[in-house]
């Protein structure tokens, strides 16, 4: 086990602290703590103490002075006096959280959680690349390179494929911070590694609910990727990815050879409406009425209700003896309740994805399920003119996920974990996740169920959201690995850091993230919190990922050159 590298620069010495509150480090007089290259929140430091070496993170930078010397008027008078006082009468301090022990003689694990703290005057140095590698490993078949620490540009932060899939993942950040970029990167890397696994249960497939058409074909030009528009998953891995789109003729969907996403109302169940109640503006009574109607009319209840409504319209709908009013009376509901339900069903029936007749070649839901079961990744592209868009999005995502999750659960219960027929790991990526996981809805939606049931059925979530405070705290607690980009709202910052060690320190760091390309990564997949500069995804990086996929399957994917021959 190597100790901290001698080349890394001394910053100061431990002068006080506790495991609970973190360490106080007094900077050496020669450490320029106002130099961002040397000191900053979120920077990693290595601390040597006896036989142990710790890796910690700077969570605060402070100015301190002894005996009020900084308050004396003369202290500001002369550059010499100021210089002489620096590091002696006045000095800089760092608040450091020692997270892990990275070098302990006789330790069985390479990296272990810190259970004690370094002693007084333990030297504190900038962490070196080797120390970062000790904690995060190197990029490989099982480790995904996501970025570098903000202060060490040549030290890759790599996350374990297994750890990322073991529990649900969250990507949180306000608009324009690079959520889609980061998610696309993570999905591409998961796809490549998921395909490379030998055991069925360790393979991964993804179901991606793509609200803005970001993931199938190339996304918008991004400051992170230079002038190159980052390619979508379908471009990178045409054989591995299917795209289903509400509007297959829209630009990106057309280029992706997207199939049409449609829905046959004979498949709609009251539970689908219940799970989307908020977005559809359905009352609880209207949902109860839906259950009653299903009981009365059977599987085709939606079509029957719409037929009744059609007849009603010819009677102008106002008559006390109209079929709908009679129905409301019959079911013991207020006419307004039925009207509310009917409004929603009409809204859905007017959408382009609605098919009154069951398609002869099967429904899109069945097609999506089939692709996923065969190991394909599926992107459901919602980039279409739909009003209100959110309501359709929430309804369709719930509709599909509930059924797919049911299938996965059934299969996982039937097959032993080591069976080749065991379902691959399913990652369900969902944008604007608070629509599905709010306090009111988390208990009703398949998304809430997936979050709560952890990986019991080999299904986890990848939630992408800009308003994490709207997500049910219980669900948030199950989102084990969190990528936190710049957030504006204090409540959102609180929500994403809930349950994390040293929340106060991390909060200060999140509040100081740059708007783009910087993320705090906390939770299950990282042994210590990371303040990362998200890696670039330029052409060279894209070629690498395509080549990695080709190494796995031979000629199945696009060649790296295919990507740029456009």
């Amino acid at each position: 086990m190597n100790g901290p590298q001698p080349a890394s620069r001394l910053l100061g010495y431990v002068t006080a602290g506790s495991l609970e509150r973190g360490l106080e480090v007094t900077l050496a007089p020669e450490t320029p703590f106002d130099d961002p290259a040397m000191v900053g929140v979120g920077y990693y430091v290595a601390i040597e103490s006896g036989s142990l070496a710790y890796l910690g993170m700077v969570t605060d930078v402070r100015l301190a002075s002894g005996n009020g010397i900084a308050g004396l008027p003369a202290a500001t008078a002369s550059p010499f006096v100021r210089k002489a006082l620096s590091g002696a009468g006045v000095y800089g301090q760092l608040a450091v959280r020692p997270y892990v022990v990275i070098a302990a003689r006789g330790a069985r694990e390479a990296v272990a959680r810190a259970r004690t703290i370094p002693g007084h005057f333990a030297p504190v140095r900038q962490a070196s690349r080797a120390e970062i590698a000790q904690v995060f490993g190197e990029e490989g078949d099982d480790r995904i390179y996501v970025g570098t620490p903000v202060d060490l540009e040549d030290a890759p932060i790599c996350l374990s494929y297994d750890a990322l899939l073991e529990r649900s993942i969250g990507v949180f950040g306000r608009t324009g911070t690079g959520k889609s970029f980061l998610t696309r990167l993570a999905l591409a890397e998961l796809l490549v590694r998921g395909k490379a696994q030998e055991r069925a249960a360790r393979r991964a497939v993804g179901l991606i609910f793509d609200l803005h058409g970001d993931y199938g074909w190339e996304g918008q030009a991004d400051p992170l990727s230079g002038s190159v528009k980052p390619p979508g998953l379908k471009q990178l891995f045409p054989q591995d990815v299917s795209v289903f789109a509400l509007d297959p003729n829209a630009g990106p969907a057309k280029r992706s050879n997207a199939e049409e996403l449609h829905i046959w109302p004979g498949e709609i169940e009251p539970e689908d409406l219940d799970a989307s109640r908020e977005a559809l503006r359905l009352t609880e009574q209207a949902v109860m009425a839906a259950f009653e109607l299903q009981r009365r009319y059977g599987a085709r209840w939606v079509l029957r209700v719409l037929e009744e409504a059609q007849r009603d319209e010819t009677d102008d709908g106002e008559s006390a003896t109209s079929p709908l009013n009679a129905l409301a009376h019959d079911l013991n509901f207020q006419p307004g309740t039925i009207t509310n339900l009917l409004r929603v069903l009409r809204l859905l029936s007017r959408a382009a994805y609605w098919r009154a007749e069951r398609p002869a070649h099967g429904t899109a839901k069945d097609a999506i399920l089939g692709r996923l079961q065969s190991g394909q990744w599926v992107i459901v592209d919602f980039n279409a003119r739909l009003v209100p868009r959110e309501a359709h999005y929430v309804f369709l995502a719930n509709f599909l996920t509930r059924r797919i999750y049911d299938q996965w659960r059934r299969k996982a219960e039937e097959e032993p974990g080591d069976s080749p027929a065991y379902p691959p790991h399913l990652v369900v990526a969902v944008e604007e996740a608070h629509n599905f996981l709010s306090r009111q809805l988390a208990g009703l939606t398949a998304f809430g169920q997936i979050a709560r049931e952890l990986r019991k059925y080999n299904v986890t979530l990848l939630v992408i959201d800009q308003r994490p405070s709207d997500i049910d705290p219980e669900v948030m607690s199950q989102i084990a690995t969190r990528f936190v980009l710049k957030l504006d709202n204090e409540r959102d910052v609180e929500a994403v850091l809930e349950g994390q060690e040293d929340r106060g320190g991390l909060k200060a760091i999140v509040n100081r993230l740059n708007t783009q390309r910087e993320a705090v990564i906390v939770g299950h997949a990282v042994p210590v919190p990371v303040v990362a500069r998200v890696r670039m995804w330029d052409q060279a990086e894209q070629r690498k990922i395509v080549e990695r996929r080709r190494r796995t399957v031979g000629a199945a994917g696009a060649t790296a050159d295919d990507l740029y021959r456009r």
Partner: protein
Amino acid sequence: MNERMGEAPWYGRVTSATVSGFTAECWSEDTEGARVPRFGELVCAVDGPAPVYALVTDVATGPADSTRPVQLRGAPGVPLEEVHRQHPHVLPLLRTGFSATTVGHGRDGTLRPSLPGSPPPVLAGVRGCTDDELAQVCRSPDFVPLLMLTGVLGDQALAALVRRAAATHPDPSGELVRLCREIGAHYAGDPQRWMTLLRLVDPGGEA
């Protein structure tokens, strides 16, 4: 500074001593090779079991016989040299001496920043120090608390010592800052006094 580069000058002999300091009387001005030390200068009492290094914290001149004070000579505006010429008997009646506070002692060929086991003997010769000795003393200024006991004179002498030591260093401004920071630890309880010391040392200051 030239005399420091060659052989150190002789200043006088110890007339009384304790382990923490001594007083010495200077040779008369016409003694060959003899000089009067400057305030804040590092000196060394060379005789005795161990050479004793001390910082000059006061220099005094006056009648050799304290019962016979010097009377006023010379009219207003007459230059000092003319007064001496007109009253040649006065100068031989005067004595110059200095007080010095111990800052270290030599043992086994090295300079230790601590008090000696015994004071220098009376009539021990006192010489000036080399730049190397000055640098050795200032390497670890643990003598500062003793100097602080001497009050304002000690602070002023210390300021002079620091400036001289820094001036002989290859990186004068860096050394000046380093010494001030090291010394500052001893003044932690009295920030106003430390500030005064820094102003005395400040190369851009008025002191």
